């Protein structure tokens, strides 16, 4: 058996003869272009959440945003091997991995440590989904939290801001912004910005993200309520 292509002869993914040019959609001057999946610029992908995806976990959640699918499991609590003396704070260990078939070109298999920067790159678009799903899984595990955390990203393409971009759109972006926040407390937990932004655009993008976060929060809460009322019956 060839383990993840290592010993196998070099393989490649056949690509189309013609390269997709940026001009077909996403041209700077043109404001009428359509997004590849037909959404409006300020329209998020339909979000679906469900808790209790993994039976053996203390808490788990499944999230589906268009074609992006995420499962988060929470295990524990476990005894910390590193703690030498008594400590009154716990630790949250996070681990993210991506299937080899998640990207158009087959992924890097189990050696993703070496390629963690690439993995990070590949995950960029999905990170807000992962974060939202993780907060739901923690809630499902019954861990006390200040609030749920919802994450949304915005891409800047020329003069346009598009919310919740897909991979294809991110490949053409000039800049991106991701906000994760606790909507009920109206607190931003994380904000990351890359690329070139004007102050006005940045403000607009942040507002756009925060609005979307509070909408996402409603969907997540509805999912938790549904699960809780189902378990009562």
């Amino acid at each position: 058996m060839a383990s993840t292509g290592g010993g196998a002869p070099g393989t490649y993914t056949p690509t189309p003869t013609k390269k997709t040019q940026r001009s077909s959609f996403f041209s700077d001057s043109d404001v009428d272009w359509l997004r590849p999946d037909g959404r409006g610029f300020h329209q998020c992908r339909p979000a679906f959440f469900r808790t209790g995806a993994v039976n053996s976990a203390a808490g788990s959640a499944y999230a589906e945003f268009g074609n992006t699918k995420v499962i988060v499991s929470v295990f524990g609590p476990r005894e910390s091997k590193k703690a030498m003396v008594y400590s009154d704070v716990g630790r949250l260990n996070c681990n993210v991995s991506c299937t080899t078939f998640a990207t158009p070109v087959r992924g890097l298999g189990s050696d993703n440590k070496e390629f963690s920067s690439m993995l990070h790159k590949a995950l960029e678009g999905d990170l807000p989904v992962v974060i939202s799903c993780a907060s739901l899984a923690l809630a499902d595990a019954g861990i006390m939290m200040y609030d749920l955390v919802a994450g949304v990203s915005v891409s800047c393409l020329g003069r346009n801001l598009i919310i919740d971009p897909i991979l294809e759109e991110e490949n053409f972006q000039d800049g991106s912004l991701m906000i994760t926040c606790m909507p009920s407390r109206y607190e931003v937990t994380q904000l990351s910005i890359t690329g070139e932004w004007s102050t006005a655009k940045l403000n607009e993008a942040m507002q756009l993200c925060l609005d979307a976060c509070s909408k996402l929060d409603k969907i997540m809460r509805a999912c938790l309520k549904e699960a809780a009322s189902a378990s009562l019956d």
Partner: protein
Amino acid sequence: MGVPDASGDLSSEMEVDAFRHLFPLRYFERHLSESIRPDARPLGRARDTTLALGAVASAHGSALAKIGSTTMLAAIKMEVMIPSTESPDEGCIAIDFHMPPICSPIVRPGRPAEAAPVISKQLSDTISSSGMINLKELSLVSGKAAWMAYLDIYCLDADGALFDAALLSAVAAFSHLQIPIVSLNDDGKIVLVSEEDEGAKLEKEPVNKEKRKLKLSSIPFSLTCILHKNYILADPTAEEESIMETLVTVVLDSSARLVSFYKPGGSFLANTSAVQDCVALTRQRVKELQEILDEAISGMEID
């Protein structure tokens, strides 16, 4: 901790849940003597099984299989390779089984699961020895180009009978597989023929005329059983596997021929009648699984 003999007397007084955790073996044996299992199954029955094809949009073929809570996601990506000189007109299949830390509390991040490479090898052996796939069908240009099918199976929830669920998802992914249309360009490289080009006149003939499916002959299916004393438990859960350690996995193909028989040790020896019973249970199970697979495929065709 009390002596094991004390458990018999305690069972009447102790709470069921406490008894289950303190004396798991006794707890199970009490059930088995009544010919029932704690999840209300008879001994020989497998858990509810579902199959969904085409779960991964970015793959050429994919399937999600569930046996009880055990969940497997299999996806196939097709890439082009130069075939080896020994077999110039054959493609290749690379199978990898993954157990990410989300699937079970036993698997910790950074420490790969011990079971994963074992199941990986078992899957490759089973799929190649069953002769389900004719590797010649994966050839594109003899000696120059052939398909390499990367089959990756991810365990999303590990609750026993991992091999059975993995094999089911694997064969389902192969039956869902659509081989893309490609042609050979001037540089001798295989390129994808996109949907728009299909109608237009091509300067080069496509190497394979149309999107096609692999012809699968004699599909292998499996059933794992636990041998414990005189009992045979089909399709064990993770809890059952952790308590009673003698496992037997039988693989039969769709015409009920034996593909493989796997018994990795354990404290109980399999006598002839136990082996025959396991095979008989598997024969039953193969019929069920074949129906489930057929149903999933016909469900896809309607869409």
